[in-house]
Structure formats: structure tokens, C-alpha cells
């Protein structure tokens, strides 16, 4: 069954789009990060213009994160103070990101920048996750009752000024850190149409030293508002949010997410992280291959301008 997407201006198979949304939801349920990093490149592969794919995917991220936030909020796993500080950076970053996106689109380099950013991000995060989970796996085998280390280690970053207390995260760190992190994630969110959970979650654990219990909830909080900001600005400045496309992705995601969390409940965390690492690396490899391969035709068309 085909449906015409009014903003993408083409018809697409309903089930393909629904399945894409479900795959993203499945990942969200399994790994606690939005599946945007997988769904956006796949949308581009099936022929949706990158600008529309990114903006509409951001809309799915809104739906996805509100579902997860619902649970996390009830369990008290959101560090609101940290979330608001991250959000301050996130709002500035995503607004700057949309401006950057508009400019890149105008000079015809947006597709390239999206692909390159994905390759860099996904390959580094994928290999980190894979490496970390393999190491943990072997360590645990050798020494199953390893003593728990310090709550978190102190780096140079803890000496920065403008320190703030984050009671829920049991942290006393400079506010510059979360603001900068939020800013960078905001830019990513605007250009790649992802929530950025796959970058934000590891950064919160390893860089900020937040306890893992509040990481997912707090990142969901920040992602919800940043994604909403991206949707709003993309719609207002570029007109690239396709609600029909977003609706199908959201419906798919709603179905996929609980299946993912059920799978996650049955698998140990290490295996889960290794699986995720492999998946992320596979997407990165495919994207890199696309960049290196000689295209069927070197020509493409930019935006059409109807003259008065």
C-alpha cells in the first residue's frame, strides 16, 4: 500500500515506513536510546530527501522520548536540575544547528555532512561499546566478585569554575560541562535528526560521572525538549517536517518499543551492549561505503526555485 507524503512530495510504501519506525522503537526499548541514528540513514536510503528525513525523524524522537520519560519520571529517575542545565545548552545548540542545517542545505553540502557525521560518530561509539563490553565480559569471567571502584574518578574537568551541586546525581561539578555537552548534542540533534541518546548516555556516565540509574531518565528529559525545538524550528524555517511520514514512524515506534524492552529484560547487559556495538558499526560501515562508492550518476538537483 502506497501513501503520498505531502512534504517529501513522493509516494512511499506504508509498511516500509511503519517497519522503520518499529525498528527504531525496538532499539529504543532494547537499549534505552532512541533509534534515530538508525532510522534517519535508512529513511535516506529508501529515497526520502535528507532534509525531510532529519526533520520528520526528530518528530518521532519527541514521541519516543515522551513514552520513556513517562516511566522514568514515575520511578524518580530524572535529575531535573541536571536536565535543565543540559537543556540550556541543548536549546542554544539545536537552534544553532538548524541555522547551520539551513546554510548547508543552501550550499548543497547537507547530504555529505550528514553522512560524514554519521560515519565518525557511529564508528567511534560502536567500537567503544563493543570494546568495553568484550572487556567487561572477560573481566567478569576471570573475577566474578570484583570489588566496586570509586563512585567516579576525578579529572581535570572537575577543576573548572561555576560549580553546581546536583543532589540526585551525587555530583558537584562545573555547570560548563553539562551546558557544553547539551550544546553539542543539540547541534547533532538538529543536523542528524537524532535524539542524541547514543552519545549523551555514554557521555553522562563516563564524562560527567553520573550514576547509571538517573542517566536514561535525565537524557530523555533533555532529548524531549531539544527534539521538540528542532521540529519547531525546522517547520518554521525550512518547512521540512512531514507529519504523514512522522505519524507512520511514531506508530511503528509505539509497537516496537515494548517488544524491545521485553527482549532487553531477557538478555544480560554486556551482551546487549555488544549487540548494539555491532549494529552501530554495521550502519557506519554501510554509510562509509556509500561515501566511497562511485555513484551511478554524479549529478543531482538542488532545490527548485519557481520565479515569479
Amino acid at each position, binding site marked *: 500500500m502506497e501513501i503520498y507524503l505531502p512534504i517529501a512530495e513522493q509516494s512511499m510504501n506504508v509498511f516500509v515506513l511503519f517497519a522503520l519506525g518499529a525498528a527504531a522503537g525496538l532499539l529504543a526499548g532494547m537499549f534505552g536510546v532512541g533509534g534515530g541514528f538508525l532510522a534517519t540513514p535508512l529513511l535516506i536510503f529508501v529515497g526520502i530527501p535528507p532534509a525531510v528525513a532529519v526533520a520528520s525523524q526528530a518528530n518521532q524522537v519527541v514521541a519516543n522520548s*515522551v513514552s520513556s520519560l*513517562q516511566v522514568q519520571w514515575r520511578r524518580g529517575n530524572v535529575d531535573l536540575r541536571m536536565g535543565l542545565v543540559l537543556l540550556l545548552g541543548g536549546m542554544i545548540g539545536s537552534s544553532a544547528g538548524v541555522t547551520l542545517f539551513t546554510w548547508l542545505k543552501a550550499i*548543497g553540502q547537507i547530504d555529505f555532512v550528514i553522512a560524514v557525521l554519521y560515519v565518525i560518530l557511529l564508528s567511534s561509539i560502536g567500537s567503544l561499546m563493543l570494546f568495553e563490553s568484550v572487556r567487561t565480559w572477560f573481566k567478569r569471567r576471570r573475577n566474578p566478585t570484583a570489588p566496586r571502584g570509586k563512585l567516579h574518578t576525578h579529572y581535570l574537568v572537575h577543576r573548572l569554575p561555576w560549580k553546581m551541586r546536583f543532589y540526585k546525581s551525587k555530583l558537584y561539578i562545573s555547570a560548563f560541562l553539562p551546558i557544553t555537552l547539551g550544546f553539542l548534542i543539540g547541534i547533532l540533534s538538529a543536523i542528524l535528526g537524532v535524539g542524541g541518546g547514543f552519545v549523551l548516555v555514554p557521555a553522562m556516565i563516563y564524562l560527567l560521572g553520573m550514576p547509571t540509574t538517573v542517566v536514561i531518565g535525565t537524557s530523555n528529559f533533555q532529548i524531549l525538549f531539544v527534539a521538540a525545538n528542532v*521540529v519547531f524550528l525546522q*517547520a518554521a524555517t525550512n518547512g521540512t517536517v512531514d507529519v504523514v511520514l*512522522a505519524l507512520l514512524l511514531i506508530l511503528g515506534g509505539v509497537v516496537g518499543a515494548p517488544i524491545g524492552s521485553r527482549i532487553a529484560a531477557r538478555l544480560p547487559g554486556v551482551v546487549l551492549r555488544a549487540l548494539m556495538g555491532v549494529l552501530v558499526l554495521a550502519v557506519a560501515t554501510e554509510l562509509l561505503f556509500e561515501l566511497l562508492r562511485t555513484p551511478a550518476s554524479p549529478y543531482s538537483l538542488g532545490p527548485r*526555485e519557481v*520565479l515569479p
Partner: protein
Amino acid sequence: MRRLIVLLLALLASNAVPGVASAQRIEPPPGSLTGPTFGPAPDSSLPPSVPSGPGMPELIVDLSQPRVSITSAFQGESLLLFGMFDPPGEIVVVVQGPPARETVLRKERFLGLWLNTGRMRFDDVPAYYFIAASAPLQRLLARASGSEILSLEDRLASIRPVRPRSPARLAEFRQGLVEVKRREDLYPANFGHVTVQAGRLFRAELPFPSRLPEGVYDVRTYLLREGKIVAAVSRPLPVGKVGFSAQLAGWSVEEGPLYGAGAIVMALVLGWLGGAVLRRL
């Protein structure tokens, strides 16, 4: 501050969107559509335009549909053009999409990666171009030298880059433009056939792909005798989104912020409901 604006607009949208959306679901039957995005549309109740004049041979043309309606189920469409003429003669049909400025981008290998390095902008590029004829076109056109009927190559030879460029580069990018348009079936590679029956009735299929730019297309039918145009009929063919698609696209352009707020509200409601319902299953 931005959050405040978002919330405010979300509230506005939640009041405005549902009523309008449900009203737009009812799509009028094709053929009697009055789309909101169209320019002047031909009145289908009137007989098709015929150039009248003493001694001019008769040429009557009509289309199976007065317009191409892009609905939410649109997957491309084939229109039937039919008519009658005073024999003898040959029929040529030229369909042109509205002209616009197009930017052609060219990828080149840079440090092993393929990226757009070249670009050229052209003015007056037809969105769509299709020719059908009742006899091999080359023969008809060769005899009709200096006529207004142009093959795609001749039509594109007249487009000019926005900034002057070297002829070699110009030819390459022009070829690239045709390549992309061919790929999207906007410049169908094959000439269409006009079938003539009983010596005076003719018909031709006009193929329109799913990625069809909007605007008023021009359908021209010519009657040729010995390479000379003896009669011509021009019909505008509006192509546009109708119904729900048209509403959405219209809002997206005219009410961008409100549209964005509506999209956010939709995502929030569905995400919330989805999360709440499916957790209980």
C-alpha cells in the same frame, strides 16, 4: 523563552488543528475538484479551445481529466489525450511543466570521498517535458524546420545558466540535468505515440510520475501538413495537491510555526498514549 513559545503555540494548535483536519478528510470526487493551491483552472464545462478562423482545418482536443490531482494515494498517473482533426495530417503533442530555476550539483571524488563540488544554476527549465507524435518525430521535425515544436534537446538548448560559464562545462551540466530528470521520469526518454483511428480520431497517453512538481502545465496539440503547422490547440493542465495533502503542504508553507507546533502536539499525544497503553498489555 523558546519553550514558552513552543508551549503557547502548542496550545493554539491543539485548538485549531483537530477541527480543520477532520473536515479535510472528505475528499471530493476527482473531476469536480476545486483545489485551493491551483492557479486559474480551465472550465471543463466549456468545449475545448479551438482556434477559429476562416479556412482553418478543424482540430478538437480534450483530456480524460481536467487536472492532475495529487491526493494522499497518488502514485503517478496516466492521462488520456484525445481528439479529432480534419485529415490529412500528422498530430504532435507537447506537454511542458512550469519553468523554474534548477540547481544542478555534480559530485566529484575528493580525498577518496564523493561530494558535491560543482554546481550550476539554470533558468527557465521546464519541470516536465514530453512529446508524442503520430509519425516518427525526427522526420516531422526535420521537415518542420523553424517551427515552434522543439525536441527536448532543442528545448534545453535554449535554457541559460544564471551566470555565464564555459561552453564545455555548460554542455556537461545540461547533460547532467537531463540525466536526473530522466531518472525521475520527468523527461520521459521515449517519444509517445499518437494513435490515429479512422483517419481523423486520435489519442495519446500522457505519463506523469509520482514525484511531479506542482503548477500549471501546458498541453499543446499541433496538426501538421507537409511540415507546416496548420492548426494548434493549447490547454492548460493544472497539477496540484488536493484534499488532506494540499492542506498539510499549505500549512507547512504558510503557517510553518503553527504546523511545527501541531506536529509536536501529535507526537506528544501519540507517544504518551502509546507508552501508557502498551505498558498495560
